[in-house]
């Protein structure tokens, strides 16, 4: 399995270096949302965040021959985005406003590697992973989970709008939680287990 994976990664990197659209799109799809979210958390402006991320991908495109692993690519994307965000804030002289919220932005030096504990990056990764877990739920289960948790709709409302029974809604909500939990355990993603418990708190409140 590991050989097969690294072989796949090798092919991906080759195609990527060769400027093949499919390989680039694969990387783009994998990181775009997370990078936008990451940038948004720093600059607090959705449009600006997306523009900065577009610039980062343009930089990546220009350097496409330089990468030795998918991890390299990812590190480059996040570091370049973070630097672009910091530069943007500096140029807009907004730094003094934001630094109250994120003191880590005071490190003005341009960083070149992901080091230590970066709360914004960590948060991005956690949200990205949780979002993927939700997306991977079976269709009906995902739909009910989203209606309930993300849209804050009541069980009765969900039952009516999907034309299913109240008990089915309850059962699917529990199923969503169980599936997320077992997936997190399988992947051994400890930080997310904490998040899972946050979800549990939600269930205790609103179930």
């Amino acid at each position: 399995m590991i050989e097969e994976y690294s072989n796949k990664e090798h092919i991906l990197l080759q195609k990527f270096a060769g400027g093949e659209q499919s390989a680039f799109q694969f990387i783009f799809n994998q990181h775009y949302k997370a990078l936008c979210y990451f940038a948004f958390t720093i600059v607090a402006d959705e449009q600006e965040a997306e523009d900065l991320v577009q610039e980062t991908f343009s930089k990546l495109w220009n350097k496409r021959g330089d990468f030795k692993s998918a991890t390299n690519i990812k590190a480059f994307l996040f570091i370049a985005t973070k630097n672009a965000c910091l530069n943007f804030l500096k140029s807009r002289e907004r730094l003094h406003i934001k630094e109250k919220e994120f003191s880590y932005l005071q490190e003005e030096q341009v960083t070149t590697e992901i080091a230590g504990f970066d709360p914004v990056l960590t948060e991005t990764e956690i949200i990205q992973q949780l979002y993927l877990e939700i997306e991977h739920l079976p269709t009906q289960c995902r739909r009910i989970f989203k209606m309930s948790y993300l849209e804050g709709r009541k069980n009765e409302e969900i039952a009516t709008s999907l034309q299913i029974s109240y008990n089915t809604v309850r059962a699917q909500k529990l199923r969503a939680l169980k599936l997320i939990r077992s997936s997190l355990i399988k992947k051994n993603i400890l930080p997310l287990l904490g998040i899972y418990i946050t979800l549990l708190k939600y269930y205790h409140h609103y179930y």
Partner: protein
Amino acid sequence: MEADQNSETNPLLQRIAYLVSRYQQDILTAAEEEELRAWRDASADNRLFFEQMTDPDILRDKLLQYEKFDVAAGWDTFSAKHFPAKDNVPVRPVYRWWSAAAAVLLLLGAGIYFLRPSAPPAPVAALSTTPILPGTSKATLTLADGSVIPLDSNGNRVITQQGALIHLNNGQLQYNTQDYTAQTTLNTLATPRGGQFRLTLPDGTRVWLNAASAITFPTAFGQGKREVEIKGEVYFEVAAMAKMPFQVKVSHQTNIEVLGTSFNINAYTDEPGIKTTLIQGAVKVNAGNSSRVLLPGQQALVKSPGNIDIVAHADTAAILAWKKEEFNFRDADIPTVMRQLARWYDVTIVYAGNIPARRFQGEIQRNLPLSDVLEGLKSTGIHFRLQGRSIIVEP
């Protein structure tokens, strides 16, 4: 997953995560509590992180924020700049499937977009207000004695029939044959329009039936060939049994011989020909007096007996989309799209004039009400009306 490499390899984060989850379960030891407090108080970032990640409402807002960023739109922008369309491909503006249904469609994440011709979107047509719901798990089982048992996704039960035990479980039927010497009888599992069902045959072969499809099979496979007959669209994962070849009869003159494998057969009579797509293993397609062996990823198209066309690289993701509860159209014309909608939503398609020459590309969940799907189609410039259970396509 690449996404969590940082978190997996950062021991401090692992430690904090451990403490936070114990905090949430209220099982911290005094020493751990002190450790967590020290970390939390060490910086404003840490405190903020801790507070946000343990609050369900904040977490929800963050997920909603994350969901907002549209990777398809982002890619459109990026690719327009760096991958201009090649000269040999007809240039059509990429159109994302935006509409009132966008909120629902966005849940699909990447890759919801439609190609459309250069015409501007048509004025929005009025839609019927009675919701037409998507298909569900339902089918009928016809036993050898002719009795018909309606099946749906609810209720688990066991049906016994001449040595065969049939379990019904959440929209799946499973045959467990106990007595192989019992006289073999034939059963038929059939889905209506707007139905789908799964079945495990007595040999362990797994079968998925799309809407308006059927399979006839023996309740026990004896010695020699395992033979079944199908209609409509069926996906098979055949249990390997070297001495008992599996054969699928599709029509009077077409059958598929199988050697432990998975493949999809689309044999709807309103589709142009019988399409067999091999995912894994090997199958041999026999049509009249000609036959071809397929390699994985290949598709055989039988338009008439004795005439087999091979598609070397079939679009297997699009072909198997129905199994994943999705529609997946790749450069599909309007009749192709409409035939799929008709079978799944059990509606009739009426063409009020010439069929518009448009082609579509995109994916959408199959469990949405018809109105959501039509909203999306409308925004690509097709004119149509919904009247009762008919979609009227206007030129």
